[in-house]
């Protein structure tokens, strides 16, 4: 698939070309944004082509994409467009100015390989690429909150990187014949080493996306750093890790045993933790941070199903579709919302209060996105949850009920946020600028449109 490769190189190129340009004195030039756009659009195109072809194998199998991963890539590409659209020239004001425009395509580039990695080395490389990009992104805005957050992120992240390296080495050593393809490990999971591989992969993944109990850093980073950076880190970069763990779960850790049970327990803990912790917060960004944890909980529960379900069966496909749709719904909602908190403020009691009264379009879009996160039909978030929960139902009614009750409890904070948006304002606050508004509206429109299509596109996986 030459086209895809070429498009990806365009993405890479766009990210690589920006730093030299800036150092040559073009850092005020409008073309930096344009180049970044080119990289993002190229990625989106590549993702759509992969999706349309139903999958692709690159570099003789080192990178494998199927419909599931390509759906995830499309989601990441769409959100990246939203982020770039909203931020526009805002990044020009940042201290290390061109970095954002370069790192966004780079993150996407890494995500492509991470999501499709069929080889341990590719995993390691792309993991590091995406991680490092994320660390820098968090630090970029340069305010003290962002810097503190970045330090925490990097510091804890170092441990996670060690763990993924540990996984990689065990994986390589346990594969018969020392093959580096991601696949079944020799000796089964009963081996202490295999178990160690499982836990290290899981905890590294858990660190990245916020699975309890590996999530410790997440609320303070997502909740404190600049929303524009978090929009990319939490909204976009996460998707690659989700795709990775799905591949691992289905190809490496399959089969019954304690692994699925462990995953189920973690899933239940994660969703409950996220939802309960989010209950009383009046800070939208914190709320989004905790709700990210809750969403990863649902996704983890679906991954648990994948491990126990016959590949190729309709329930298996439905779970995959659920994870994909949920990821897209998640990214399409989280990205604009994190952007909103950086733009209009994060306090639901003061800055965001009364959004409806001063900006109807933004508030309706915000409401739509929150509703999608909550899972209100016919928005995309509903179908994601539904397709994940149906297969869960086939396995364990306990996990199902906990997940659904969690979903019911989560209505408390989502709806409270909605309420605050519609409450009459008390103070005059910042306006939402047109570019951020556009991101919100497009995100909401996409969520609604994909939601209406979702029942029809179930069949493509």
């Amino acid at each position, binding site marked *: 698939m030459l086209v895809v490769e070429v498009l990806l190189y365009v993405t890479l190129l766009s990210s690589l070309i920006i730093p030299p340009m800036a150092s040559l004195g073009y850092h005020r030039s409008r073309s930096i944004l344009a180049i970044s756009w080119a990289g993002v659009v190229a990625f989106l195109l590549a993702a759509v082509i992969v999706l349309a072809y139903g999958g692709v194998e690159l570099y003789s199998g080192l990178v494998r994409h199927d419909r599931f991963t390509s759906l995830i890539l499309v989601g990441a590409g769409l959100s990246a467009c939203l982020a770039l659209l909203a931020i526009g020239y805002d990044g020009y004001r940042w201290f290390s100015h061109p970095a954002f425009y370069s790192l966004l395509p780079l993150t996407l580039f890494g995500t492509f390989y991470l999501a499709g990695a069929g080889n341990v080395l590719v995993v390691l490389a792309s993991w590091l690429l995406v991680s490092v990009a994320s660390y820098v992104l968090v630090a970029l805005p340069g305010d003290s909150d962002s810097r503190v957050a970045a330090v925490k992120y990097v510091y804890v992240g170092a441990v996670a990187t060690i763990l993924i390296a540990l996984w990689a080495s065990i994986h390589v050593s346990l594969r018969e014949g020392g093959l580096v393809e991601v696949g079944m490990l020799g000796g089964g999971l009963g081996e202490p080493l295999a178990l160690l591989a499982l836990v290290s992969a899981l905890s590294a993944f858990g660190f990245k996306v916020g699975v309890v109990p590996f999530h410790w850093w997440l609320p303070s980073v997502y909740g404190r750093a600049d929303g524009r950076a978090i929009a990319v880190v939490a909204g976009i970069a996460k998707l690659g890790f989700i795709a990775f763990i799905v591949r691992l779960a289905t190809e490496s850790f399959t089969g019954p045993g304690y692994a699925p049970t462990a995953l189920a327990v973690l899933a239940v803990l994660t969703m409950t933790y996220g939802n309960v912790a989010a209950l009383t917060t009046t800070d939208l960004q914190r709320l989004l941070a905790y709700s990210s944890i809750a969403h990863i909980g649902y996704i983890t529960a679906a991954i648990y199903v994948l491990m126990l379900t016959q590949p190729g069966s309709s329930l298996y496909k*439905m779970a995959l579709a659920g994870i994909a749709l949920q990821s897209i719904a998640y990214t399409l909602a989280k990205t604009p919302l994190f952007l909103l908190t950086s733009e209009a403020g994060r306090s639901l009691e003061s800055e965001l209060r009364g959004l409806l009264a001063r900006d109807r379009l933004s508030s309706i879009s915000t409401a739509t996105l929150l509703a999608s996160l909550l899972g209100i039909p016919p928005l995309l978030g509903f179908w994601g949850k539904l397709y994940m929960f149906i297969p869960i139902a086939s396995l364990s009614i306990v996990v199902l009920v906990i997940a*659904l009750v969690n979903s019911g409890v989560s209505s408390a904070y989502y709806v409270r946020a909605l309420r605050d948006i519609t409450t009459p304002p008390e103070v005059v606050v910042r306006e939402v600028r047109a570019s951020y508004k556009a991101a919100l509206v497009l995100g909401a429109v996409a969520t609604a449109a994909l939601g209406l299509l979702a029942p029809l596109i179930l069949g493509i996986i």
Partner: protein
Amino acid sequence: MEVLMAPVLWATVVLPTLLAIAFQILGFRSRQSIRVLAYVSALILLAPVLLIAYYLGYRRVGALVDPLVLDLSAYNIGSIGLVLDGLSAPIAVGISLVTALVSVYNVKYMEHRIGELHSEGVRVPGLNAYFILYNAFSSSMLGMAYSSNLVGFFVFLELSLITSFLLIAFYGYGDRLRIALMYFIWTHVGGALFLAGILYYGVNVGSFDILVVDTMEYNRAMARVGIEGLAVLAPLFIILGLLVKMAVFGVHMWLPYAHAEAPTPISALLSPNLIGVAGYALARFSPTMFPQFVADIRDILVFLAFVTIVYGGFVALRENDFKRFLAYSSISQMGYILLGVATLTGFGVAGAMLHYLSHAIGKAVLFMVAGVFITEMGGLRNMMLMGGLARAYPTIAAVSLIGFMHLVGMPPSLGMWSEILILLGIIRGYNPGTPLTLITIALLVIVAFMVTATYSFIAMRRIFFGPLRQGKAFEGGEVMDEFKVTILIIAVSGVIAFLAVELLLEPLRTSVSPLLELVGGG
């Protein structure tokens, strides 16, 4: 059973909302165009009544099926489609009748309410946006009644929730945002339990279609996943979820707030229509999907139903706010529907479904009457300040009496038939064999039904009779504008339904009997 293809069901669900959106986009916002919108929406919403009366009632077609079906059977979801049969006919009639007439009623009431909010300095979406939400709310309830698939049912349920939530949050009274929140959260918790049950059930049985239950597949699934999951836990969650939605005793906490503080036209829809649908769902699902389980917990449900009737009625007697009074009365009325369904007999289930309709008519009338006082008497809601209003509002007093008669079950109101059928259901279901059981049943029935009669007639007296307390300002004679004529029409339809009950009862009979074969009723 003869089935007729009717490519209009989706249209009745989708058209009203599309129409309102079109009006919004095209910018038709004058008073005149809003009235046009209200009347046209009403006509579309009223279509199911005519369809049912003609095809199901008169032509005795077994069911109307919309040919537009979303086939997801490859994914074990079944086909999401719309069907109208005898069991859902009273539900659809109730929703259609009330939403259509309230649609016209809206114009004056919401003009008043929005004006009131504006004068308080609150900016809310205008009448046109209101109609989008209103029509979406109305048709999502119709969708629930039509749904042939659990997933479809749930989607419509959620839609009705979110739209009604917004309507309360924007246009409600009192601490409307807090109340809207409360409403949303609790019904969502109920919804989550319900969804948990149906997902577990549907996945294991292999289909979410309600109308056809594959007994073989059911038994196979039972053998596969075990009794406790499929035949105990799943039904338990489904029933718990539905009971929260119905607001029976113990989980009724959200209802008095939501139904009392919603804008009155919405109260008129919420109270009888939305919560009653949960009763319909119970009747639709339980005998076919988990016959053994409901048969096992029948006594508990019946007891719960009696407690709900008496409890709701007694607390209603203590309420001084007219709308809160009506809200508690709705809780009590849900007890009747639960009672009918829980008897698991043809008579009982048919009676419960008819009671849905008669409660829809009666409670809609009463809420609309409350709305008349709110708009025309300076927001009067306190029953302590009412009294003697029949002098100022003779026709309103008359329709209120008809409304209360629907709740009490007095002829010539449809309520009589539902009361008789529910009673027959109890007697058949429990088949008293000793004087003690007979006397117990009689006592329970008399106490329960008397509570309803008591609060109805006492409220009638408190509101309409006795000396006029609110000055002489209202003795100019009531003006029967379209606002009040709609109430009259609903009340008269109740009397017509009483006379033409055969049109609903025969379809009910045909669809109820196969439903109950599994539980040995019929």
